[in-house]
């Protein structure tokens, strides 16, 4: 049941900038800033107070409901609990820890070297307590995603279709066993009929690694897909692998699917087997604005400035610094925000990458309609958003937009279509309340 998703674009990959293996460790920073919200849902309440001594791996924030706990990524002293910049823009309550460079480690999680007999509840509890969220950038709490009973198809997403990013690629090359083990643990929870690892064909090295490792794992199928953006978008990937469409406003489970990023899988194995929470992650620090683009193993809470410095610093004046990939990532005001669980890349673009036009105008070429993977008509969403016509926006199904950016990427008139659609969505949601 191999299909294609609709539309899509082929931006230049630029992944060769940072294909180094293994990822270099990012020097531990003197101070980490751990935001109490690094997931979709309600923020954590702090579990520590200013002046407390914390250990690496200690839970420092948690909450009820849809919430993923956060942990200290270094040992040291809490110097502040205050609002700090967040990579998704805006500010967020964060725990600031001064590193004592002792790396005194203590985890409340129980390691389970033998995982065969573990039941779903134990596994889900480990995932929750480790604070695992969608590590591909979506940051949806993984324990909630895994608590949906039985599914037909379990998908590990290693597409990494965004240009520049090589974090998952490198993860598979260096830590593939752990990712596969994590996927098997998720399989234990979700009991799917079919388990697939999906990867795009521009990652030859990772594909070879997976082929080799999956030789003895017949229950996992490897799907090598022709590279096209946004293949790694959840709905599009499900469409490709199963031919089914997640209904408008629905979730993957409505079509019997659960999709986890491959890095998320690796964290699941780390949490269950080793009892280690999310403390550090691979971040691709890259772009022509970075002197030595590379993959770094970065403690959560390290500032962008420290991570960039670990990659040789900036080459000079840069145009934009992005948390995440250039298609869907967030442009940063400065380098003060910390690396959170969902930050898989820091991309520094220079003025040469600036493809925006001085006088955007729609020539009705219809290319946005042709590339939209959701079957929308972005040119009208743009027009009606700018006009504030919420009735028309609803008619044109604005809330189905996944903000993948294909429309704006391809637009010869250089319209900021995604920006307009976001504004339009806000208007529609406000009205709906």
């Amino acid at each position, binding site marked *: 049941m191999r299909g294609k998703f*609709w539309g899509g674009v082929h*931006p230049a990959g630029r992944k060769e900038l940072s294909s180094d293996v293994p990822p270099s460790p990012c020097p531990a920073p003197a101070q980490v800033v751990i935001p109490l919200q690094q997931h979709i849902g309600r923020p954590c309440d702090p579990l520590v107070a200013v002046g407390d001594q914390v250990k690496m791996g200690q839970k420092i924030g948690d909450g009820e409901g849809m919430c993923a706990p956060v942990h200290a990524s270094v040992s040291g002293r809490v110097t502040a609990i205050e609002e700090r910049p967040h990579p998704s823009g805006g500010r967020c309550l964060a725990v600031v820890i001064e590193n004592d460079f002792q790396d005194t480690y203590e985890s409340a999680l129980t390691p389970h070297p033998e995982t065969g007999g573990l039941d779903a509840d134990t596994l889900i509890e480990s995932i929750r307590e480790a604070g695992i969220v969608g590590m591909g950038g979506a940051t949806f709490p993984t324990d909630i995603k895994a608590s949906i009973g039985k599914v037909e198809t379990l998908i590990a997403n290693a597409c990494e279709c965004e*240009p520049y990013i090589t974090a998952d690629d490198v993860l598979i090359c260096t830590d593939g066993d752990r990712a596969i083990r994590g996927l098997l643990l998720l399989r234990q929870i979700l009991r799917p009929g079919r388990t697939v690892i999906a990867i795009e064909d521009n990652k030859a090295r990772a594909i070879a690694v997976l082929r080799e490792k999956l030789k003895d794992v017949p229950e996992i199928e490897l799907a090598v897909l022709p590279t096209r953006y946004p293949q790694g978008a959840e*709905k599009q990937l499900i*469409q490709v692998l199963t031919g089914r*469409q*997640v*209904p*408008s*406003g*629905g979730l993957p489970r409505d079509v019997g699917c659960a999709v986890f990023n491959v890095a998320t899988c690796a964290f699941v194995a780390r949490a269950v087997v080793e009892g280690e929470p999310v403390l550090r992650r691979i971040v691709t620090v890259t772009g022509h604005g970075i002197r030595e683009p590379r993959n770094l193993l970065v403690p959560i809470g390290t500032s962008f400035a420290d991570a960039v410095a670990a990659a040789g610093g900036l080459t000079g*004046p*840069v*145009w*934009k610094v*992005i948390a995440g990939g*250039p*298609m*869907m*990532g*967030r*442009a*940063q005001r400065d380098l003060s925000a910390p690396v959170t669980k969902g930050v898989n890349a820091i*991309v520094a*673009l220079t003025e040469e*990458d600036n*493809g*925006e*036009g*001085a*006088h955007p*105008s*729609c*020539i*009705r*070429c*219809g*290319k946005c*309609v*042709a590339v*939209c993977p*959701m*079957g929308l*008509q972005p*040119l009208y969403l743009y027009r009606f958003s700018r006009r504030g016509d919420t009735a028309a926006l609803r*008619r044109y*199904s604005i809330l*189905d937009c996944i*903000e993948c*950016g294909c429309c*704006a*990427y*391809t*637009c*010869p*008139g*250089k319209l*900021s279509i*995604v*920006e307009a659609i976001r504004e339009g969505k806000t208007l529609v949601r406000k009205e709906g309340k």
Partner: protein
Amino acid sequence: MELTVSSSPHIRSGDSTRRIMIDVLISLAPALAAGVIFFGLRALALALVSVAAAVAAEWLWRRLAWQYSTISDCSAAVTGLLLALTLPATVPYWMAALGAAFAVVVVKGCFGGLGQNVFNPALAARALLLLCFPAAMTRFAVPGAQLPLLGAVDAATAATPLHTMVMPALPEQSLLDLFLGRTGGSMGEVSALALLLGGAYLVWRRVIKLRIPLTYLGTVAVLTLIFSRGQDHLLWMLYQLLSGGLLLGAIFMASDYATSPATPGGQALYGIGCGVLTVVFRYTGLYPEGVTYAILLMNAGSWLLERFTPTRLFGAPQRKGGLR
């Protein structure tokens, strides 16, 4: 350090309005060259005058409207060249200039500029000239006539294949003549070969999709085959396809972004509509040619077709067509 903060996506394709318009200019070069080969340097001069007038009108209009200059997007140049190619090589220069200015200012500028116009500017200007100067606009020189660059044109004129077919009878020119362009007609429409080359370039460069040209030409082919007026139906159909402004219209005018539907379904209906109207006008109209008015009429109905053909939405049952 000053970082730019704006919405994703942060990278854009190399495509631009200017690049598209330059591609259209390139794709029209073979048709212009054919015009020069068959009607002499006057064809080139006429094209230059038309382009210059269009660009000048655009510059002046935007200036008077206190808006930034748009001449660098090359869309005015495209309009000027397209208009010139729909004119007989015998028309006076001022007529081309007048048409070009009308196209840019009235048909495009007054409707809000590029992308906002309801009618194809070049075709609307041609329709205006045909209305105001019917004699000059239907005086087609015989191919090979070396028209004087300056002064009044007093060349031998020829009946175009379409004139003959109104009889109805098959033209004396061979199909090969029509294919190469050895026939009377507007300076850019005579050579099917040149137009097809240009069309192939546009498709290769992904400037246009084949949907509109193919549905348009296909509809004309089917209709002229069914309602053939010749002894040999197939021959009649081929003559209909190769004569007049059909190829120029189907490839370069009907596929105009601003004036055709943006939805795939709408584009197909639009092409079919153009084809039906072209055949109806050719068979029953006052003029032997019907392409101009067929496309202009479909321009007016373009928005309606688009409303009737919404795109298929991901994850939703196919919505019912109809006015929403």
